[in-house]
């Protein structure tokens, strides 16, 4: 555990530039994951009630 902590400290937290860049890069990736997770949950919670689920009942042909 001390090896992980000191490695993390020396690689990321020691230089402010690296720290800030890591924060913003982390925010970017976090947002993608967060959005995907929430969207998946929403789709699961509303199964069979969204237009994409019932579209095939009303639209037979592929174009319009």
């Amino acid at each position, binding site marked *: 555990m001390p090896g992980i902590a000191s490695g993390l400290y020396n690689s990321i937290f020691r230089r402010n530039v690296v720290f800030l860049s890591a924060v913003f890069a982390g925010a970017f990736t*976090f*947002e993608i994951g967060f959005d995907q997770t929430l969207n998946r949950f929403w789709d699961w919670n509303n199964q069979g009630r969204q237009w994409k689920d019932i579209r095939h009942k009303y639209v037979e042909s592929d174009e319009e």
Partner: protein
Amino acid sequence: MAPLPSRASTLLRTCPRRLLQCLNPAFATSQQRRTKADVVERSSGQYDQTARFESPFKNKNDNPTTKIPSFANYMSKKGETNNKTFQYFMVGGMGLLTAAGAKATVQDFLVNMSASADVLAQAKVEIDLAAIPEGKNVIIKWRGKPVFIRHRTADEIQEAEDTKWENLRDPQPDSDRVKKPEWLIMLGVCTHLGCVPIGESGDFGGWFCPCHGSHYDISGRARKGPAPLNLAVPEYDFPEDEKVVIG
């Protein structure tokens, strides 16, 4: 000249002495109590680079009334690096969440300001040109404004291109106003005060505005009357040969 106050004169007399002390180390050492090591360092001009600290409370007998509490119970057993890493991790994690939240907030505001789907759906108009015979006008509505589409004949194209456009009020060649010479597409709003001109009338065989008598030629250029500019040409495109998309 008034005599100096006694304190000021004393200061004046001692100042040169102090200066001398600063300049001459040997003199200074004689004046002040110094340790032997300091004197050696000063005179050789070299200082010890390693920092030293000696606790003034080391010898208990020196300060019998001073009691130093023990902080051992409050000190971390995990060591410095672990705690420091944890603190920076929490700070960074908080910053990460804040940055993501701030970005989402700003993005929501900007998305809110952009055109909605129903506006975008009406922003483009597609017209089948095959239904318009040569030499006929069609007026369609686009974004709440009339748009003139004229299928020009070869004579009209020739006339529009041969006009001496350099001396017109708003000089513009016919090639700048059309993408295909047989299709003239422009906004049907008079550039004077915004009436809708009447097609196939006027002195120049183009459009005539009944409100204040502006005449436009077969390329939609202002030729006579109060109109200051040519009829505006909207963005349009021919995705297929017989179709035009305005907008």
